[in-house]
């Protein structure tokens, strides 16, 4: 029930259209705040079955259930969605109008739907509806060629997801032919085996959809314009929350349904992610635009999560899931900071900036904390996630682990280059920009606190995660894993 409420409440945002203009933002803050409170309720006290799950026989004629559940895997990503959306709503300008806030809330609702869905069609419905609010956010409020940015986002993502729809229906139809019972419940479909002629194609359909949504190299074409042209709060939501949909779906859907295909294709998948890892880092190093450094850095981080998932080991999967949550908070915060930075300086060009650390000490401090967290400093959550992913990588593929190790160094390089270029060095000419206001410090301080908690106490998340690694895959690695006495 709680999961359903979390999905439902943002839709009350429709009422924002009825409010007087001055009250719209306050209304949106209330709704986003209620979401955070609901998540806190789910986190702090154990949920009974009634609160945790809804499983309604939605469309019996099609065998579709409306099945949402706040389980250990999705719980923290739901939390991520609520927190980042609240931050995004709080940092948005007051005069944006009801439509903007409604679309922002709707993006939250559909993201939570994806994180909690346990029926493939329910999953697909949210997966696809999430495109609509972002389409309007990009089309309506992005700078530059907003219309083509929005259309690119929509068409690329739908390209992937519509083929996935064929895959979903194929799973259901095959299951029905085997058992005589049409269903799309993930738990039932996990026992369905497709014929060998079809299985790789269906697997590919799912994989491509997830890769596009994440995005991972080489299907990230929609990402650069979307991240760079969207207003900062929208970028924070896209990079912090929505980019996690793709990698989360790999853990939720791909691993249980296709672990056989995944382990067969593992070298290829690893190679794909490794190339993405290098590519993103390399491009981040070359960017002259502060936002694009973070955007390509994020592309590289997504590849790191994908690597963790493709190991199919418990450590890798747990690490990837933890990294999703941590990365969402870190990147969300980082993009908000960059947004304020741009607001104050009027520029995003690294070359024209610099030396701000004297005039804006508060901005500098928080910028530094988030930059260090993102580059994986021990004690901060980036490190904990990467550590677990490395553990999985060493179990399954040492070569890729070595590549990833090199990239960690590059990651430190591009983040420090960003910080240095923007904040340190000689003062750029022009009027000194203003520092963060107290409300801004409060907000970013809260996010920073969250980052610290995640960094110091990763078990706050990982201890909730269920066994993710599929049984029967990498048995040798699993055995070694157990001998090592590692706590999962």
């Amino acid at each position, binding site marked *: 029930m709680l999961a359903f409420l979390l999905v439902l409440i943002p839709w009350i945002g429709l009422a924002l259209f009825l409010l007087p203009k001055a009250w719209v933002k306050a209304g949106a803050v209330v709704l986003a705040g209620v979401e955070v409170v609901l998540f806190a309720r789910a986190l702090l006290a154990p949920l009974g079955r009634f609160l945790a799950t809804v499983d309604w026989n*939605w*469309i*019996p*004629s*099609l065998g579709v259930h409306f099945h949402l559940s706040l389980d250990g895997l999705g719980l923290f990503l739901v939390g991520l969605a609520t927190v980042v959306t609240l931050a995004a709503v709080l940092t948005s300008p007051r005069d944006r109008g009801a439509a903007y806030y409604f679309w922002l809330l709707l993006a939250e609702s559909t993201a939570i739907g994806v994180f909690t869905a346990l029926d493939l*069609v329910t999953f*697909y*419905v*949210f997966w*696809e*509806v999430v*495109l*609509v609010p972002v*389409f*309007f956010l990009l*089309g*309506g409020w992005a700078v530059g060629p907003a*219309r083509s940015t*929005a*259309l690119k986002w*929509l*068409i690329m993502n*739908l*390209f992937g997801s*519509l*083929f996935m*729809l*064929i895959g979903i*229906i*194929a799973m*259901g*139809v095959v299951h029905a032919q085997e058992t005589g019972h049409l269903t799309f419940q993930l738990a039932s479909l996990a026992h369905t085996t497709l014929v060998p002629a*079809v299985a790789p194609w269906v697997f590919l359909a799912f994989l491509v959809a997830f890769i596009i949504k994440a995005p991972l190299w080489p299907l990230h074409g929609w990402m650069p314009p979307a991240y760079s042209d969207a207003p900062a709060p929208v970028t924070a939501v896209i990079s912090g929350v929505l980019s996690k949909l793709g990698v989360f779906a790999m853990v939720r859907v791909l691993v249980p349904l296709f672990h056989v295909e995944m382990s067969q294709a593992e070298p290829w998948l690893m190679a794909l992610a490794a190339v993405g890892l290098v590519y993103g880092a390399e491009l981040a190093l070359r960017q002259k635009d502060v936002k694009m450094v973070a955007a390509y850095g994020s592309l590289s981080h997504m590849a790191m999560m994908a690597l963790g998932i493709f190991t199919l080991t418990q450590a890798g999967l747990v690490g990837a899931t933890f990294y999703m949550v941590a990365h969402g908070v870190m990147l969300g915060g980082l993009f908000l900071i960059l947004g304020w930075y741009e607001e104050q300086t009027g520029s995003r060009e690294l070359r024209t900036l610099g030396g701000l650390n004297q005039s804006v000490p508060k901005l500098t401090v928080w910028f530094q904390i988030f930059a260090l967290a993102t580059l994986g400093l021990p004690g901060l959550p980036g490190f904990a996630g990467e550590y677990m992913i490395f553990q999985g990588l060493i179990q399954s593929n040492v070569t890729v682990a070595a590549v990833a190790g090199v990239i960690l160094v590059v990651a430190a390089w591009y983040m420090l280059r960003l910080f240095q270029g923007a904040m340190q060095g000689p003062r750029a000419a022009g009027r000194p920009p203003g520092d963060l206001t107290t409300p801004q410090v409060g907000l970013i301080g809260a996010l920073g606190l969250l980052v610290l908690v995640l960094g110091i106490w990763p078990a706050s998340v990982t201890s909730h995660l269920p066994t993710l690694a599929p049984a029967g895959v990498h048995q040798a690695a699993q055995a070694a894993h157990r001998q090592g006495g590692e706590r999962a």
Partner: protein
Amino acid sequence: MMHFLEPEIVATVGILATLVAAMLVRPRSTVPYWFGLVFSAAALVRALTLHQSTHLYGGVVLGDSYSIVVTVFTLLAVMAGLLLAWDPERYGAEFPALMQLAGVGAMVMGFAGNLILLFLGLELLSLPLYVLAASRRTPLGGEAGLKYLLIGAFSSGILLFGAALLYGATGSMTFVNFTAVHVVPGLMAAGLGLLLVGLLYKLAIMPFHMWVPDVYEGSPTPVTAFMAFGTKVGAAAALLRVLAFGFSLSAAWWGLMLGYLAVLTMIAGNMVALPQRDLKRLLAWSGVGNAGYVLVGIASHNVVGAQAALFYLLPYGLAILLAFTVVRILEGREEAPVTLASLKGLAYRQPWLAVGFLVAMLSLAGIPLTAGFIGKFYLVRGAIAADQWGVAVGLVVATIVGLAVYFRPVQQMFAPGEGATGRFTVGTGIVLAVAALGTLFIGIYPEPVLHAVIQSARFTWLH
């Protein structure tokens, strides 16, 4: 037995009553429109409360739940057409009777179990539409009427020739007597082929679609709206009926052929819709593409496919009615052409109109939580159950093209600029509200409608 075909009878009596009323009242009176609307509504209520399953004269007249569904869809189209055209000064007193007559034609196609009856229904549907298509006294209107008449007569001739060959091959005109052959012999194959071509013309399947854009553009918008929904309902219903009842055993033959045509129609129809600037032409091409979607269900030649084809007519019909209603409102009484540029800034000028149009476009694009998604979902299921993977992929490719088609007008609505502003009337307002709410309702909670529709197309012998 006594209730048999009552909705159709009510509708037919309604035509006569409307004609008489039109003769008795002043020319500018709305009374004939009221007659048409009330009798159509009465027929609709009767159809919704009727449970019939009677096959008369050895299967010549098939009054079953399938024909009821066809009747309901047709009556929705007729009523929408009447409400959109609620302007006696412009459309004249004979408009309602002609519209109802066309509707009855589509209903006859729904219960026809015999080629003669099928032909009768087809002509009853087409003849009034030839007149209505030409009722706009502009060069475009004349072009539309003439083109529709010539192509229509041509396709009727083909269909009739096919029927004659089938009669020659089997000695019967009744669908159920055709069956019981796995391999279609030459004469019968030729007959079936020509029959299909005749019906595919009406359904506007490529390559038999050339008339559609010009006729849709030139006809008055209420007529276009009816044509886009009602004509397709009649043609698709008859096509599904004749194939399922007459040729179920030779399904592998025609299923394959129709599958190819469906893929061609879906993809090419949406592709050509992409560069259109005139909204009516864009919707016409989208109608071609959507006819391809319906054909996917028929080509699957299994129960799920048949159900999907019948069901898809409703989401499509509601969405296209909605879109044409927006065109009707924006074009105003002068019937000025509505282009994509006319939509500029609509979201800020007339937000409710924009919401209605947005719902139509989302549904046509097949976004979840609208009816169009449920329809496409079901169609893909039918194609996969029939092992027609290529058709399923074709549908998906067409849908991706369709996205670009349907989201371009949406972007125009939110773009800054001065476009057209229209005035709601009571009639257009009703159609807009009912179609939009229906689309959303079926999208969010499809079970009641879905169940009712698919139960009536349980042609279980197909698989």
